[in-house]
């Protein structure tokens, strides 16, 4: 492979640059919502998330104290105060008294206003307004200023989303759906895969062909009949049609063809000698399966488990058809979809919720990537 590389320095540099570009395009979108989810809700709409690591500056307006705040000192009338509230982390960088020129004066400089009035605003927002004559009137002088805020991150959004937007509950619902829907098909598929790989019985070839055919049957084909079936069963027995049991079985059914296909091709590749020597020792098929095949198949079982876990966790369609939309049943993906409708512009809610929904797959993915890739290769490169 490496032999085909251009050996020139520019060529190598170009490769690094190109890969860097691809990596950037593929990671920046996710980074965007991660950073935004940690930002203050007001800052999210005030500036792009990519500016959040540097200090951001905004222009704001405020009013100085009024005549009743004035004090006389050395023959001058003085009003003092602070433009920024107590505990405000921002610093003032420039100020002005006309909206057309909000940053006319550098901070700390003395501004000469009309009638001998002077104003000085300091970095921390404190100001001194002094005049040779007494101040009059009810309203204070209007002042515009530019304040820069240091980068500030907060976990407030996560607290809000998890505990008051219902994402926490949905997280639990997703787990409730995902864990059984991952374990049940593994068991059923493993037995079937062993039978299809190592036992001889009439109709085996046909069964394998049917399973490979079912591999590509679109989920859409199953939705309407199953919805009718579930409604019918629910009405007949007087039970709710949308239950966790229903969705576990549905996910099991939809995951089985791939599970059997993947496990069968792996189990069929196990060395024949091991099976035969066990059989000569008097082991039954059941014993061979439990004591030899299952332990040897651990890698492929792990691969499938990861696939099924990610698929079920990330599924929206099946959950929307077979589960309710109330708080006790709505899963993360469906909840996120609902939030997109109801909280359309509230990016602090959306980005945080989105990150909560993708964090589990990302952890699973990073910690078990090896098995995931192996399953991917076995599943798609013709029978692996």
């Amino acid at each position: 492979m490496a032999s085909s590389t251009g050996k020139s320095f520019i060529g190598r540099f170009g490769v690094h640059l190109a890969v860097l570009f691809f990596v950037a395009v593929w990671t920046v979108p996710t980074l965007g919502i991660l950073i935004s989810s940690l930002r203050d809700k007001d800052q999210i709409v005030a500036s792009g998330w990519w500016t959040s690591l540097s200090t951001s500056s905004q222009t704001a307006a405020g009013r100085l104290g009024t005549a009743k705040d004035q004090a006389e000192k050395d023959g001058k009338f003085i009003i003092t105060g602070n433009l920024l509230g107590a505990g405000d982390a921002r610093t003032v960088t420039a100020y002005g008294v006309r909206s057309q020129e909000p940053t006319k004066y550098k901070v700390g400089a003395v501004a000469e206003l009309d009638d001998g009035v002077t104003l000085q605003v300091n970095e921390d927002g404190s100001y001194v307004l002094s005049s040779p004559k007494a101040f009059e009137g009810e309203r204070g002088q209007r002042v515009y200023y530019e304040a820069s805020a240091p980068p500030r991150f907060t976990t407030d959004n996560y607290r809000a989303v998890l505990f008051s937007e219902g994402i926490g509950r949905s997280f639990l619902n997703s787990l409730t759906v995902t864990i059984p829907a991952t374990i049940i098909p593994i068991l059923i598929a493993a037995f079937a895969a062993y039978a299809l790989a190592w036992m001889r019985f009439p109709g085996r070839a046909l069964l394998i062909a049917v399973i490979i055919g079912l591999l590509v049957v679109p989920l859409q084909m199953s939705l309407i009949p199953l919805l009718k079936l579930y409604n019918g069963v629910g009405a007949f027995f007087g039970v709710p049609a949308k239950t966790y049991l229903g969705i576990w079985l549905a996910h099991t059914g939809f995951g089985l063809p791939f599970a059997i296909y993947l496990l069968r091709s792996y189990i069929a590749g196990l060395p024949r000698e091991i099976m035969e020597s066990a059989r000569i020792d008097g082991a039954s098929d059941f014993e061979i399966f439990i004591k030899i095949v299952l332990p040897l198949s651990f890698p492929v079982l792990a691969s499938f488990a990861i696939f099924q876990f990610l698929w079920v966790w990330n599924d929206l369609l099946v959950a929307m058809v077979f589960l309710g939309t109330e708080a006790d049943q709505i899963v993360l993906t469906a909840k996120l979809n609902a939030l997109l409708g109801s909280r359309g512009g509230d990016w602090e809610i959306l980005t945080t919720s989105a990150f909560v929904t993708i964090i589990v797959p990302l952890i699973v993915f990073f910690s078990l990537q090896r098995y995931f890739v192996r399953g991917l290769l076995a599943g798609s490169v013709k029978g692996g």
Partner: protein
Amino acid sequence: MAAQIFSAILVIFIGVGGCVAYFWGANKIVDVIFPSRGVSGATAVDNLRRQGLIRPWLFVGPAMIILTIYLIYPVVETLRLSFMDRGSTSFVGLANYDWAIGDREFRNSILNNVLWLAVVPAACTFLGLIIAVLTDKIWWGTIAKSLIFLPLAISFVGASVIWKFIYEYRGEGQVQIGILNALITRLGGDPQVWISLPFWNNFFLMIILIWIQTGFAMVILSSALRGIPEETIEAAVIDGASPFQIFWKIMIPQIWGTIAVVWTTITILVLKVFDIVLTMTNGQWNSQVLANLMFDWMFRGGGDFGRGATIAIIIMIAVLPIMIWNIRQANKETGGH
């Protein structure tokens, strides 16, 4: 909430325990009815044969029952329902198909699906191949691949939120918080409402799927490239072939089969694409696709199962050639037995 956790754990135990109990118990029963140990030679052989007849069906039985209920029966039933009216009470012949051909939204969906099919598999395969080749040449290629692979773990809904944030639009003169519009305004352009631009919005939705699936293509193709025998490339180098010639004439032909697999896998995925369209536009602004239209008709106005089933059948027809090809390939590999 605590009750839910408890019942979930309980159900996991019951479900898993039930499965184990079934397989173990069924196996035991066969052993008891047809004992092969502790009986005379001829009987033992006879019983072993009987066991061999029954046991495979015990093993594949549960899988067959579930597959029949959840996939085989629905396929037949959906076909039947596509000839029935909205409440599935009376036979209407081809009326639903007739409706589909004349429906503006349906035609728009077909058009968009064709567009998706033309762009997404090609883009994913092409980008995946380029990235696979490039990352093979640098020392930090594995890390780069991991990062590009990562979106594959993200749900379509999550990805939609991520990209909706990128496409976010603010009125002219306001601070653009969507990175795309920020970039456009920085370059002197006007901000756009990307997802409601008719026709072009399709491409902005496709980018999401390409972003997710390129990692898949990359991993598969990368492993296929590694499998190319060194000698073929070395021979080409000795013969004075340029890197381009080596890539197109030596490497590509050898991984042709893998490219086909990647292409068809993504093609099937594209036909089923639903979540992205639902969450981004819900089919507005001429961005409808078949899978979302089908979901829509399942529930629109109380649900029209006839039309929904018809759309599902049309998706199925599109998948059919791939299905037949798959079965043929598999039969060839197992030698037809």
